[in-house]
């Protein structure tokens, strides 16, 4: 046993000496210059002008796009509808009589702007998701067409969002009671018709407004840069990450908006068609709104 250990130590000492001597001898020979031209610094300098600092945003973008983005998008478009389905089954829709007196909520111009925005925004979300899940649909001409529809809808929505902003901004500033609204989740978790703290628009609608207009502006700008690669590559990578993350938020907000208007409050879609909401609904869901 002792001999075994001794010989082991001897072998290790020989290796160590050889290693030290080897590097010392090898240093001044032909390989001196080699490291210089095959080192990471050399390549980073070489490609820096074309691809920026890949190790920072390039790697982050590659990692996020390859492993995370599509999973989160898949989660958003499956989990959120399931939650709403459960809500619809367990708590159900809020029902307000449409026979009583009604209050003008949206004038004709507002409704036109809303529906242009609705159409273009829905197209943006659908085509955006088609691009993200392009592999599932096999890519090629249909997904290429989706990209082209995406840019055309974006142009329409970008103009429309300016009007949306001007029409609604005066009613959309946060108010103290909005915090209360968030805490009770707008009263959507109970079946009771208790007045909910909200002005003409509730906290949910306000956040939807700001995300759709201001967030839409960010999406439009980042999308424009991504479309034309109109900046240095590191900026484009950062914008693509922002575009995707904000996209997740906007997709979930659109799903929420559609659920609220079509299912959660029965007949509330009518208010965006005729412009009128039932007085009963306004008194409960927008209790702080002082209408004439």
């Amino acid at each position, binding site marked *: 046993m002792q001999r075994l250990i001794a010989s082991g130590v001897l072998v290790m000492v020989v290796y160590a000496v050889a290693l030290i001597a080897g590097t010392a001898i090898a240093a001044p020979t*032909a*390989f*001196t*210059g*080699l490291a*210089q*031209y095959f080192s990471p610094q050399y390549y980073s*300098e*070489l*490609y820096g*002008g*074309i*691809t920026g600092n*890949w190790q920072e945003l*390039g790697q982050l*973008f*590659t990692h996020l*796009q*390859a492993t995370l983005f*599509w999973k989160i998008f898949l989660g958003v478009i499956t989990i959120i509808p399931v939650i709403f389905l459960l809500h619809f089954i367990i708590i159900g829709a809020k029902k307000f009589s449409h026979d009583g007196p009604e209050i003008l909520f949206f004038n004709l111009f507002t409704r036109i702007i809303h529906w242009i925005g609705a159409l273009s925004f829905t197209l943006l979300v659908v085509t955006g998701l088609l*691009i*993200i*899940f*392009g*592999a599932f649909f*096999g*890519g*090629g001409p249909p*997904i*290429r067409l*989706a*990209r*082209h529809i995406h*840019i*055309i809808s974006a142009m329409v929505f970008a103009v429309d969002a300016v009007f949306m902003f001007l029409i609604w901004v005066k009613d959309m500033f946060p108010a103290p009671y909005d915090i209360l609204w968030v805490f009770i989740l707008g009263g959507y978790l109970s079946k009771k018709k208790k007045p909910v703290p909200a002005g003409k628009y509730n906290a949910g609608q306000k956040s939807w407004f700001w995300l759709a207009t201001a967030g839409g502006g960010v999406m439009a700008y980042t999308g424009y840069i*991504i*479309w*034309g*690669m109109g900046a240095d*590559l590191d900026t*484009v*990578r950062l914008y*693509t990450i922002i575009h995707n993350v904000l996209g997740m938020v906007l997709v979930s907000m659109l799903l929420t908006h559609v659920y609220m208007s079509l299912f959660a409050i029965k007949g509330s879609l009518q208010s965006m068609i005729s412009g009128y909401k039932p007085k009963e609904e306004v008194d409960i869901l927008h209790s702080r709104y002082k209408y004439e």
Partner: protein
Amino acid sequence: MARMRFLCDTERCIDCSGCVVACKEGNHVPVGVNRRRVITMKQGEPGEKSISVACMHCSDAPCIAVCPVDAIYQREDGIVLVSKKTCIGCGYCFMACPFGAPQFPKGNVFGARGAMDKCTFCAGGPEENFSKDEKQLYGQNRIAEGKPPLCSAMCATKALLAGDADIVADVYRTRVFERGSGVNAWGWSRAYKKD
């Protein structure tokens, strides 16, 4: 199976851009697209070096990882190819590539990018070998013909090596041992050495 690889010997590259021209002409590469380019560093200064770069045909390629339509794939011999019929021109591969290899010709809708074009190692694309489609979309398929890629085949100084990784490495190693590398490489100092 052999692993295909490029290697540019920076001691030999003289920035003639012959590889760029050979590739562009031989493969009928779209206008505005260069599959290969020559980069010169420290131009006009001591230690000037040129290197010819194109797609590196990476193992675990980032472009394959990010492609939303799975248009990019890797052959068994390591060559990374793109299916131009599947590509939607989103540009993600260009953002992911550490070497700036993917290129995009201008499309026709609002300046949309066309399908991605990059170095194919002169191995064509997913279409049938020597088919008209393959020729038109990707250029020559010299690998299927048993020839090296155009760029390395025409390289006047034999700086650009392409082929089986082991053989390329052997050739390069032999060169380095014989002539040295970096400051020890043969050059003016060797030619006019006084001793």
